[in-house]
């Protein structure tokens, strides 16, 4: 049963200093999907995620959550930022804090924290201060914290951008598990292989415009737009 989905994005526009950083973007997200937002640096991928998550307000257009709990949509979402933000506390305390903010009773938290750390393969780091974790561990912890919230929609901003292959693989496995458990995923990524492996739908952005929207298989087989074609070719070089 959906609390906030489906999502309709209509004419989404964001201007700063007179420049349209996002220009009249419209699309829908149905429950259960994994949508990858692709495009070159500065295309507006992170900005789109922030607007969808309600961290920034659009200059025009709307982000319309259509489920029964739309009024408090953000409480049914979670986001992992391009540079994950961890509190200056232990790994376990980071997850416990998030659960407590989202109203999970104290009695149930310890178990869910342990479970989340276990699933992320971070059980041994539970008491380590998050500030001293490696880049890959930070990313995994942020992901574990987000998924512990059982969000209906999870936003991921380049979840493996700065990771070595082994860590990237662990993060991808975690994403697959979260998706399989029923969470709808909207992610920004540069990694064609990753988009191919994870996504079922692609939104291709360039210069703040939604240039192409297609099923992942169709997009990678034969992109319709010249821009996406050039991008795929460039990224593969």
């Amino acid at each position, binding site marked *: 049963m959906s609390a906030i989905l489906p999502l309709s994005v209509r004419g989404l526009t964001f201007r700063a200093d007179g420049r349209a950083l996002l220009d009249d973007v419209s699309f829908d997200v149905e429950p259960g999907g994994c949508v990858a937002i692709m495009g070159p640096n500065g295309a507006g991928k992170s900005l789109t995620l922030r607007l969808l998550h309600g961290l920034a307000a659009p200059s025009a257009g709307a982000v319309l959550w259509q489920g029964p709990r739309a009024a408090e949509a953000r409480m049914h979402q979670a986001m992992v930022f391009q540079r994950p933000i961890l*509190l200056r506390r232990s790994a376990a305390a980071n997850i416990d804090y998030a659960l407590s903010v989202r109203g999970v009773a104290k009695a149930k938290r310890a178990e869910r924290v342990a479970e989340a750390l276990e699933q992320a393969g971070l059980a041994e780091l539970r008491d380590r201060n998050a500030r*001293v974790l490696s880049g890959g561990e930070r990313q995994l912890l942020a992901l574990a914290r987000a998924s512990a919230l059982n969000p209906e929609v999870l936003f991921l901003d380049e979840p493996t951008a700065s990771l070595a292959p082994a860590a990237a693989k662990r993060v991808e496995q975690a994403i697959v598990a979260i998706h399989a458990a029923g969470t709808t995923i909207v992610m920004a990524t540069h990694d064609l292989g990753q988009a191919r492996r994870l996504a079922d739908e692609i939104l291709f952005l360039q210069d703040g415009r939604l240039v192409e929207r297609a099923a992942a298989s169709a997009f990678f087989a034969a992109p319709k737009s010249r821009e996406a074609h050039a991008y795929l070719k460039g990224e593969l070089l």
Partner: protein
Amino acid sequence: MREIAEGFAAALKMIARLDADLVQIVLLSVRVSLSAVILASLVALPLGAALAVFRFPGRRAVVVLVNALMGLPPVVVGLVVYLFLSRSGPLGFLGWLFTPAAMIAAQTVLVIPLIAAVARQSIAELWTEYEDELRSLGVGPLRTLATLIWDGRFALLTAVLAGFGRAAAEVGAVIMVGGNIAHVTRVMTTSIALETAKGELALAMGLGILLMAISLAVNIAAYAINEAARGRAAPEKA
């Protein structure tokens, strides 16, 4: 020169044998300044955090005001607190004038702006780091302040210790509202001023030495705490 040397020797002897007057004065000083700093922190830390986090009309003006009040002359604070606590003042019914309570009140008022201003700066830094995450989770305003104060506690301790330093070193305000009454409201700074004026250099120097020692100890503590906090953040050796 000889007078100073003799005074110094006498001062050390007083400290060594824990002279009753000396001990009483030191304990009262510490009690007053510690109480003042605790009370001031209860107000100043949330205030500093709120100024760092919330956007409201007039926020800039309040920040400028707090920064300006940081340099408030102690005698002016003494005067204001005196007026409030004097028999005809709005708080005169408390009967606090010329008691340690009045001195605590004066020092509290004196250090609130200092602690709030320093706290605002370090919380603002932490807020830039945390903002997106706390908003993403949907943390409410009060909890946001509590989170920032807790996670910034080591940096904030520096603010609190700076407040203690200013409170303990101040003469003007406590002498006005405390009256420097022997065995009742005499603290280190007021005693030093009085004893020096009377030419009683031994007690003045003894207190001076202890005041410096306390200030040094506080600074060492601040340094050690910061080091410890950094140590916790440093990568563990395998």
